């Protein structure tokens, strides 16, 4: 698959899990063991799949390739997207801190946790929409077919390094399981990727 298609699919999975995260915290009352496991899976997805893998792929491969065009507009866009990544990392650190104390914390702390989760969700949604409308078209407009093919190969290599053998399938299974659990009437086999 071409790099634009790969990134688009990844954005789709991330949007699903953001919706799960939002639903999870909207219905959070007493955190039971099974829900704690779901929360762990969500945190792992955002920390590893989203940040280390997806954002890492963009920062190590996509942004440098497009920066070679040396236009102010592209550089400004990339700078803005890198800043979003940085803010998302900070947001994730705040959430991780709260996750540790969540089972025993009071109502005020839970409320703060939910607010941080909402902020994280809003940030990533805006970021993905910005990338879909401005960054992804640039991959086809600015890179030659040879460069896109090369990038697709580099994506594959990075997947093996960051996610390891079978790692991607594990995350896809997580997206499927949690999407069906928290949105049972919405998701079916058509939308599973």
């Amino acid at each position, binding site marked *: 698959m071409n790099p634009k298609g790969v990134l*688009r*699919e990844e*954005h*789709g*999975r991330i*949007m*699903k899990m*953001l*919706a799960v995260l*939002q639903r999870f915290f909207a219905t959070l009352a007493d955190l039971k063991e099974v829900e704690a496991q779901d929360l762990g899976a969500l945190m792992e997805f955002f920390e590893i799949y989203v940040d280390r893998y997806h954002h890492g792929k963009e920062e190590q491969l996509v942004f440098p390739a497009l920066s070679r065009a040396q236009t102010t507009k592209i550089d400004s866009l990339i700078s803005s997207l890198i800043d979003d990544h940085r803010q998302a990392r900070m947001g994730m650190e705040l959430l991780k801190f709260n996750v540790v104390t969540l089972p025993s914390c009071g109502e005020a702390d839970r409320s703060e946790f939910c607010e941080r989760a909402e902020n994280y969700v809003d940030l990533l*949604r805006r970021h*993905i*929409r*910005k990338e*879909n*409308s401005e960054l*992804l078209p640039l991959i086809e407009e600015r890179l030659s077919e040879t460069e896109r093919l090369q990038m697709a190969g580099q994506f594959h290599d990075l997947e093996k390094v960051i996610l390891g053998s079978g790692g991607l399938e594990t995350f896809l299974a997580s997206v499927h399981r949690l999407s069906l659990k928290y949105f049972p009437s*919405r*998701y079916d086999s*058509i*939308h599973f*990727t």
Partner: protein
Amino acid sequence: MKVRIDYSLCMGDQNCHKVCPEVFDFDEDQLQSRVRVDTVPAHLEDEVRQAAKDCAPGAIIVEA
């Protein structure tokens, strides 16, 4: 047939607008798609189903 968009999932890649511009518009300010019709014209139902199937986050909801 009716169609609506789940805006918590819409990621603004304009794919639905490309597949069926008669039914799906794109809001350049919000970077999200919009449904242009109350009822999908019969001759566009297949395109709308295709757009829903192609939507990566599953944001398009088709109601028979």
